[in-house]
């Protein structure tokens, strides 16, 4: 994704992600590109947390895809971790621009079924966004940090950030 496209994409994703969180009753949700760009988030208060989760989500996505290849599973529909108090759902959001990774943390106010249901709706909404209809551009590893920082600056304006 080009740096010039990022502000438009971030703006376009804000409302659909908030609707998803509201409807699914999730606690935390973060949408990142495969290279770790933060595109939208809900529930985080610290830049540090967002940065870590974005990096780990991108890594988990990449490693799970590799695992799918190794086991000839094709590709995973989603990953689900069932914790005692909180649960995590990680899935790929396919868009015309590029695939994004959605990480959702939820508790017993929600359920896997609800998250799946509204994830499917979010996928359809996002796939139709005009801001995401441009051509595909690959992001190399060298630009990872730059992209990540650019995404964080969009999500957390400088004056709203905490010291980390």
């Amino acid at each position, binding site marked *: 994704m080009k740096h010039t496209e990022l502000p438009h994409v971030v703006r376009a994703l804000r409302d659909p992600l908030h609707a998803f969180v509201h409807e699914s*009753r999730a606690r935390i949700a973060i949408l990142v590109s495969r290279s770790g760009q933060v595109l939208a988030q809900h529930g985080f208060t610290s830049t540090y947390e967002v940065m870590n989760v974005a990096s780990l989500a991108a890594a988990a996505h990449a490693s799970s895809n590799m695992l799918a290849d190794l086991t000839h599973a094709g590709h995973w529909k989603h990953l689900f971790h069932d914790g005692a108090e909180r649960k995590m759902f990680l899935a790929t959001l396919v868009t015309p621009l590029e695939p994004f990774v959605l990480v959702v943390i939820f508790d*017993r106010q*929600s*359920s*896997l*079924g*609800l998250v*799946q*249901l509204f994830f499917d709706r979010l996928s359809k909404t996002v796939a139709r966004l005009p801001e995401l209809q441009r051509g595909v551009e690959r992001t190399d590893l060298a630009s990872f940090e730059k992209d990540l920082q650019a995404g964080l600056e969009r999500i957390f304006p400088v004056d709203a950030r905490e010291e980390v």
Partner: protein
Amino acid sequence: MSDVYRDAIERLSHVPGVRGALIVDMGAGVPVTAEVETGISPDALAALAAALYERTARASDAAGFGALSTFHLEAEGGHVVMAGAGDLVLIALVDDDAQLGRVRLETQRAAETLQ
């Protein structure tokens, strides 16, 4: 599919006016087994119905009425009757002209077999 689950679904499906039935894992909001008409998404139905049942059970408890046994939703085109069975909830989709008393009774009985 476990015989217990299949038997409960079959029992309910044979009640006149019942046009579909499913057993849902309430915590996960996903179907354990389902027999519904084409065009009805069991996944969506399971997720939403389980959330509704779970919330209503909490409201019943908060109101001092104790545990919820059955839940009946009346809509323009039919009814949804739900009965809890531990971590599971049994859901019947019912025609609007069905004998609801019988449906509720059979739903409760079928749910008891799941306990």
